[in-house]
């Protein structure tokens, strides 16, 4: 296998197959028959998590630390158990907002901040480029080893080849070309790359098969199964200790820290975010991935320890454990397996590099370059009609630059410490996104300043405690860097503030996340979120209300402005197509007929967001649309779920208060009704009593007369007289009851005219003069000449007067009684008084006598003749004409019944 050209050919062949798969998948996708629209493909593509760091590095790590390689895979397993909540939520939110990268995600969450997007991009680039370098190194190393077989040459000890003979250089170029071909074929609104994803899924299968092949070979070919390997290893003290982990608190702490770190990384690494979120076709695919992806991780790790132990037994020294997967088959002359391993390693490297560079180039283009170019007025970009070509160009250059940076780092680092440790250092870098991302998903009050401060602080601490020390250990920084600036012990990068006992990763993770979370929370709580942040918070934290974002655009903008704007970035044809689809979805036939409303603006913004990121999209749309003034209250009210709930509960409280009030009212009304019912019942009972009383006499006397014919004449006459009287009483009663019923129900007939009240009084007195004479009661009148005129019913007034006069005569003593009637005019009303010198009415009875069937005079032994209805009727009549009737009396000093009536306007009592 000395011929390098076979390796080159195999590599190119392999890349050709990848290319074919990607091409085929893209074609299928264009035809609407997506190959990646399947949960298993999704789960496999997530296998991009396993890079050469896994493929070669796990065995190396296992050879050094035993099971120490496992937390890197247990963490993702745990995270994916939560994937059902976290990943699905991120996917949902990202789809709703057309998120194109993790930088876009963070920028969008905190009010579409370009600054934040740029910062995340910088962190990602700084953190991840060395990781790309690691992949190039791995491919290059494996090439060197294979090419120089059957001699086992450790690349670390080989002299560095000049660049043009360096396989890594060509690997970088080929990968750049491949990535550009599949990463930037066109600008998609959703920034998805179906062909690329299909190729990545395929690569996951290849690297698993390759690793399985070598694992099976080593375990069952070289040795005699697991038992044999471990059994033999147990006899070698150096190897036996690999079977157990160090049993110290620090070791368990490191273990937990690594698990935690890889939990975060599996979500936050740009390539993981790209595959898991941006490239996700269907949210439901997440469900299967939560167990299939961990299963993949488990399978690819099954043979790690056997290979490590086998390698250590095979090569007592002189061979890098990182190369065991390759050197073990080679040492046994199994070149075919070695070639397969090489391809597997190649697939692990290419998968990582392709996805990572696509993700980074999108971020660099959307969140770094475009915002700067658009601000650079001198370029005149704001006048160019079609920027979509420029966008693609930027991305292609970004891919090339990222890969070249990776290569440059590789060249510079060589075998330095900085490259070996870079896997975990990268993990720790992207872990800085965790507070902003997960906080942003579940906490509404995070603000732009909070995210900026948290990211900056975390990044700075990470760089100081992990990145710069790795430079120092590589000899790029003076060694006394590790002693702390100015020799300050407290500030020693890897024993910050004197914290010792943690490994460097745990140490850095602790301080950087402490600073990060502290600043994120602290700065967020300095002010409440503004309207835009609150709006985005509602979209991210809430269940992803897609339309909610539209509310941020208070005004609309016409298609004539939005279409060209979108066209500039996504291409005029694609823009027109997208607008047409949108028009159809709104039931509008022509694109030009779309209403210029906030919904259209939102659509255009999200279309743009797919191409240039949400932060830039907002800026571009704002250039043609008046952004709604940040009416915090309005947006909070509409968007903020919590405030909606609050408003809702306030509403419910309000409703329940209203209901209570209504219930109380009803109860009151019911009470009144019952009272009325009781009164009616009482009234009927009283009426029946009043009617039965005369009837009783009539019946009794009639029966007596009828039964006993021997009653003498005198008696007979007396009885018949009683019968006649009681009959009259009954008649009167019935008439008055009917009268009162009419008055009360408002069905009484009134004949209203100008009435001379004095005349009515005079006539009434005349009518009763006979009665008064019979009883020997004096009746005096005091009437003004040309009596006062009122608007009233003459007969009714007469009825009132007669009632009052007959009442008076009823209660005064026979012979000595005196009744005086006076009519006088006072301030627009006429006042009639009927005063007697009777026994008077006790104060407690003065209201009662106006009730039905309540008679005064209970002091008298003789029951006064009357129905008990006269006064209630009189009061009804007087009140009907706008007056009032009352009694003034002192017991023993007589009673005066007084009523007033308003004077008619034109009739005065003047003359």
């Amino acid at each position: 296998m000395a011929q390098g050209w076979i390796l080159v050919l195999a590599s190119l062949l392999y890349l050709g197959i990848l290319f074919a798969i990607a091409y085929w998948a893209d074609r299928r996708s264009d035809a609407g028959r997506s190959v990646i629209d399947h949960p298993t493909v999704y789960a496999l593509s997530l296998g991009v998590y396993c890079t050469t760091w896994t493929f070669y590095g796990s065995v190396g790590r296992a050879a050094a630390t035993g099971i120490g390689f496992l937390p890197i895979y247990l963490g993702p397993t745990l995270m994916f158990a939560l994937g059902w909540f976290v990943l699905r939520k991120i996917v949902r939110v990202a789809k709703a907002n057309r998120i194109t990268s993790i930088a876009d995600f963070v920028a969008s969450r905190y009010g579409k901040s370009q600054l934040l997007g740029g910062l995340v991009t910088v962190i990602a680039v700084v953190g991840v480029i060395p990781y790309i370098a690691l992949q190039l190194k791995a491919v290059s190393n494996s090439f060197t080893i294979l090419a120089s077989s059957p001699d086992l040459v450790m690349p670390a000890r080989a002299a560095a080849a000049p660049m043009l003979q360096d396989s890594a250089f060509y690997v970088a170029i080929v990968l750049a070309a491949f990535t550009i071909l599949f990463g930037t074929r066109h600008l998609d609104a959703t920034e998805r790359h179906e062909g690329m994803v299909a190729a990545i899924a395929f690569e996951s299968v290849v690297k698993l098969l390759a690793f399985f092949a070598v694992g099976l070979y080593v375990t069952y070919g070289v040795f005699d199964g697991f038992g044999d390997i471990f059994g033999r290893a147990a006899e070698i003290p150096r190897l036996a200790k690999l079977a157990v982990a160090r049993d110290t608190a620090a070791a368990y702490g490191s273990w937990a820290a690594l698990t935690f770190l890889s939990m975060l990384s599996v979500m936050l690494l740009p390539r993981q975010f790209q595959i898991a979120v941006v490239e996700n076709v269907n949210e439901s695919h997440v469900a299967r991935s939560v167990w299939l992806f961990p299963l993949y991780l488990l399978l690819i790790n099954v043979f790690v320890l056997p290979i490590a132990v086998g390698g250590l037994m095979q090569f007592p020294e002189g061979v890098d454990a990182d190369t065991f997967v390759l050197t073990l088959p080679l040492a046994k002359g199994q070149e075919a397996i070695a070639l397969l391993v090489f391809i597997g390693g190649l697939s692990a490297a290419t998968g990582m590099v392709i996805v990572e560079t696509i993700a980074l180039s999108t971020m660099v283009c959307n969140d770094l370059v475009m915002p700067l170019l658009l601000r650079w007025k001198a370029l005149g970009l704001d006048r160019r009609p079609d920027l979509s070509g420029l966008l693609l160009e930027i991305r292609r250059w970004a891919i090339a630059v990222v890969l070249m940076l990776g290569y440059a780092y590789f060249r510079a680092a060589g075998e330095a410490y900085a490259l070996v440790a870079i896997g975990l250092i990268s993990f720790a870098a992207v872990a800085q996104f965790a507070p902003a991302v997960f906080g942003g998903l579940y906490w509404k009050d995070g603000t732009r300043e909070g995210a900026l401060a948290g990211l900056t602080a975390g990044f700075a601490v990470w760089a100081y405690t992990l990145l710069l020390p790795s430079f120092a250990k590589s000899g790029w920084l003076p060694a006394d860097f590790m002693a702390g600036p100015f020799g300050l012990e407290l500030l020693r990068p890897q024993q910050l503030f004197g914290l010792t006992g943690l490994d460097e990763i745990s140490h850095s993770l602790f301080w950087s996340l402490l600073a990060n979370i502290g600043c994120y929370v602290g700065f967020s709580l300095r002010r409440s979120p503004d309207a835009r942040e609150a709006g985005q918070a509602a979209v991210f934290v809430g269940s992803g209300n897609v339309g909610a974002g539209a509310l941020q655009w208070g005004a609309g903008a016409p298609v004539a402005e939005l279409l060209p704007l979108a066209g500039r970035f996504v291409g005029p044809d694609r823009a027109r197509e997208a607008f047409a689809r949108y028009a159809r979805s709104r039931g509008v036939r022509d694109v030009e007929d779309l209403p210029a409303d906030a919904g259209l603006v939102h659509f255009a913004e999200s279309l743009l967001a797919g191409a240039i990121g949400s932060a830039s999209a907002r800026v571009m749309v704002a250039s043609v649309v008046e952004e709604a003034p940040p009416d915090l209250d309005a947006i909070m009210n509409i968007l903020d779920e919590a405030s909606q709930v609050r408003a809702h509960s306030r509403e419910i409280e309000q409703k329940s208060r209203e209901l209570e009030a209504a219930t109380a009212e009803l109860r009151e009304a019911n009470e009144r009704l019952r009272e009325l019912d009781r009164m009616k019942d009482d009234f009927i009972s009283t009426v029946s009593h009043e009617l039965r009383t005369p009837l009783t006499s009539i019946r009794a006397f009639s029966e007596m007369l009828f039964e006993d014919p021997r009653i003498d004449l005198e008696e007979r006459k007396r009885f018949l007289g009683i019968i006649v009287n009681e009959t009259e009483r009954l008649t009167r009663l019935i008439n008055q009851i009917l009268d009162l019923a009419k008055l009360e129900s408002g069905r009484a007939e009134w004949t209203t005219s100008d009435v001379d009240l004095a005349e009515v009084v005079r006539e009434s007195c005349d009518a009763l003069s006979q009665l008064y004479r019979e009883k020997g009661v004096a009746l005096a009148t005091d009437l003004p000449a040309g009596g006062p005129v009122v608007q009233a019913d003459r007969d009714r007034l007469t009825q009132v007067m007669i009632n009052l006069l007959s009442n008076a005569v009823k209660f005064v003593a026979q012979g000595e009684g005196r009744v005086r009637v006076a009519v006088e005019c006072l301030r627009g009303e006429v006042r009639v008084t009927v005063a007697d010198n009777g026994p008077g009415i006790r104060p407690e009875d003065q209201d009662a006598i106006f009730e039905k069937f309540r008679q005064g005079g209970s002091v008298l032994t003789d029951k006064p003749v009357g129905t008990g209805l006269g006064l209630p009727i009189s009061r009804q009549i007087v009140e009907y004409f706008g007056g009032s009737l009352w009694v003034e009396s002192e017991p023993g000093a007589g009673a005066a019944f007084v009523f007033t009536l308003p004077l008619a306007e034109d009739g005065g009592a003047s003359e």
Partner: protein
Amino acid sequence: MRKSANERRLTAQRLAALFLLGCALFNYPVLSLFNHAGQVFGIPLLYAYLFGAWVLLIGLIAWAVERGGD
């Protein structure tokens, strides 16, 4: 067939419980119980335990998610 809201809630709770179970299984102190020399079917105890627990956890997660289909 889509799961009902109730089933989804149950699934979510099962997964959360499995996450906690995993955290317990893969960390101190449970881990320390198996951290000593010894072999199970010729495989180092700790190694066998970790992979066994891992398989169990994945199986349970798969059971929780795929039950009833979605």
